[in-house]
């Protein structure tokens, strides 16, 4: 495989693609509408209408990977003075012999944590969320003996029953994540379906096949010319969506929610493999039919494996943990590899040039 030849094919296709303003516009617009505008439309009314009684529980979306750096401060046998903690997550740990003095704790989360033999003086805890926090032999100023932090009225202790919002939130986030996986699988179908049969119908395929390009190089170029714009626009929409969602949701959840490990892994592993699967299947179909419409019609079926995943996640049958993402990405990757070798094996220059029905 001479990658240079594949790059030439891809570069030419992208050059042609850039001239098709409408197609390019729709490729950029679709992920933004579905992955940015739609979530904002869903969340903005919730954020503005529903009063804040306590921070929303986004348990399940919170990952260790999203801990800010400040969480790595040694929390045992430590004295902290005149410090502000903002959007800090402290999780699954024991704070022992910690002494806070003149500190501000703002929009933080403290969960599954035990605080032992510690003191707090002249400090405040504001707009933060505590869950499963056990306090043992602690002292402080201005509070009763049960808990000795100086706190604002926003403080919540262990909560036993999730609210309606708490139940809806994970489903909504899963749906948005699924949009970012199904969109790159849908976007390239038209471009990829056109890739071979379009050139055949334009009669530009014959001179191209007469060049020293191999079947593999030609297919690789065609695959990447459909893959790159689809994934690029999806990643752009993903970045925009994550930033805007954080901006909108931070008053309610008390810390930057996205991207967490599940979302990052999904975008780095699931979305590209799903996109590639769709592209490969469409290019394969494109090399076997004589009409662009037939290629597009058949190409519509290629998003089925991704739809199955989406239905599984949304119905609750599949929990999209990092391990599950690896499993699905591996399955998709294997299908991608198989499709590439199959497409190359059945790519027949003679049939493509001479068969018209």
């Amino acid at each position: 495989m001479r990658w240079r030849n594949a790059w030439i094919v891809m570069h030419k296709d992208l050059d042609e693609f850039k001239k098709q303003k409408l197609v390019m516009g729709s490729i950029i617009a679709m992920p933004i509408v579905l992955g940015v505008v739609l979530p904002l439309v869903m969340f903005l009314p919730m954020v503005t209408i529903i009063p804040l009684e306590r921070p929303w529980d986004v348990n399940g979306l919170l990952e260790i990977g999203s801990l800010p750096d400040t969480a790595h401060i040694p929390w045992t046998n430590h004295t902290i003075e005149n410090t502000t903690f903002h959007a800090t997550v402290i999780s699954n740990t024991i704070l022992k012999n910690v002494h806070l003095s003149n500190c501000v704790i703002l929009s933080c989360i403290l969960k599954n944590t035990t605080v032992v033999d510690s003191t707090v003086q002249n400090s405040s805890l504001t707009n933060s969320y505590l869950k499963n926090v056990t306090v043992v032999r602690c002292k402080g100023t201005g509070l009763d003996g049960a808990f000795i932090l100086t706190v604002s009225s926003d403080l919540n202790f262990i909560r036993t029953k999730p609210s309606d919002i708490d139940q809806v939130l994970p489903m909504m986030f899963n749906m948005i994540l699924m949009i970012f996986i199904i969109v790159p699988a849908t976007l390239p179908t038209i471009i990829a379906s056109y890739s071979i049969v379009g050139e055949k119908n334009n009669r530009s395929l014959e001179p191209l096949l007469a060049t020293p390009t191999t079947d593999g190089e030609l297919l690789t170029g065609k695959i990447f010319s459909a893959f790159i714009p689809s994934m690029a626009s999806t990643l752009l929409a993903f970045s925009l969506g994550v930033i805007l969602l954080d901006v909108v949701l931070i008053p309610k959840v008390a810390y930057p929610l996205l991207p967490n490990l599940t979302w990052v892994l999904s975008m780095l592993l699931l979305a590209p493999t799903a996109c590639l699967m769709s592209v490969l299947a469409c290019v394969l179909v494109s090399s076997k039919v004589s009409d662009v419409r037939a290629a597009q019609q058949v190409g519509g079926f290629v998003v089925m494996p991704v739809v199955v995943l989406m239905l599984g996640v949304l119905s609750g049958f599949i929990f999209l943990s990092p391990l599950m993402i690896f499993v699905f990405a591996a399955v998709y990757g294997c299908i991608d590899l198989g499709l590439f070798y199959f497409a190359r094996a059945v790519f027949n220059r003679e049939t493509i040039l001479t068969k018209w029905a």
Partner: protein
Amino acid sequence: MIICDGLTKTFGNVTAIQDFTVEIPDGRIFGLLGPNGAGKTTTMRMLSCLIQPTTGRAFIDSLDIRNKDDAQKIRCMIGLLPEVPGLYETLGAYKNLDYYGQFYGVPKQQREESIKNTLTTLGLWDRRKEPVGGFSKGMKQKIAIARALIHNPKYIFLDEPTASLDPAASKTVREYILDLKSKGDTILINTHNLSEAERICDTVALVKNRIVKVGNPKELAHDLFARTITITLQEIPSSILKDLSAVDYVSDVHVNGNQLILNVRHPEEDNPRVISWLMHQGLQVQFISEEEHSLEDVYLKLIEEAGR
């Protein structure tokens, strides 16, 4: 050198070309003439390694067109102009040519110079960035020819190179082809344009799903037709038809005004004998000319015979 040995291609029950056997020496222009569906394009596609022969074999510079590795090398040596230009309509002429130049590994600077020279020659340099979709058929054809030549191929396969060109552009292309020949390139041309083939081809093969005849266009005419001589006399006596018809090296004698029209087999030897005979009869010869049979006459006669 291109060697075709019994090259045959069938599509299902249809035989496109059968037993195509020719040798094309380097530096020659070889024309394939034949009606639509005669197998010309199929033959060119086989030699371009685009389709595989059903039986038979062919070698280009001793490389076998049926061998996958050889086919890659052959593709580097050939430049193909297909029946339809097949340009990328949304791209400019420059990008269309540059794209193909890159495949053949032509260095960037050389590519730029070559494209500039070619487009300037074709009068398209100022419009190099315009999408070629808006160009006329002739302009597209010129760009497609330039595309086939971008890497200076040793073997050039042209399928109907002047099909959609105006007379002036056709002349430019013909001169260009002859120029390529003078540089030592070997050119295979499929054409319906018989006068063009007659003017530029060293050898032509008349095909109708098989080779009907191969040869130099002039030799073909000579082989097929008796040479017709027109002799203008001051006056023609009525008895001459009968007397001249009796001469063994003359045939098909007839009279048109004061012109005597007859066929001879070998004009170089027979014309002086006819003149002597006429003078011996006391007749005064004013002019003598030979009627040329065009390649079109040859084509029509052979294709008609092949169809029977």
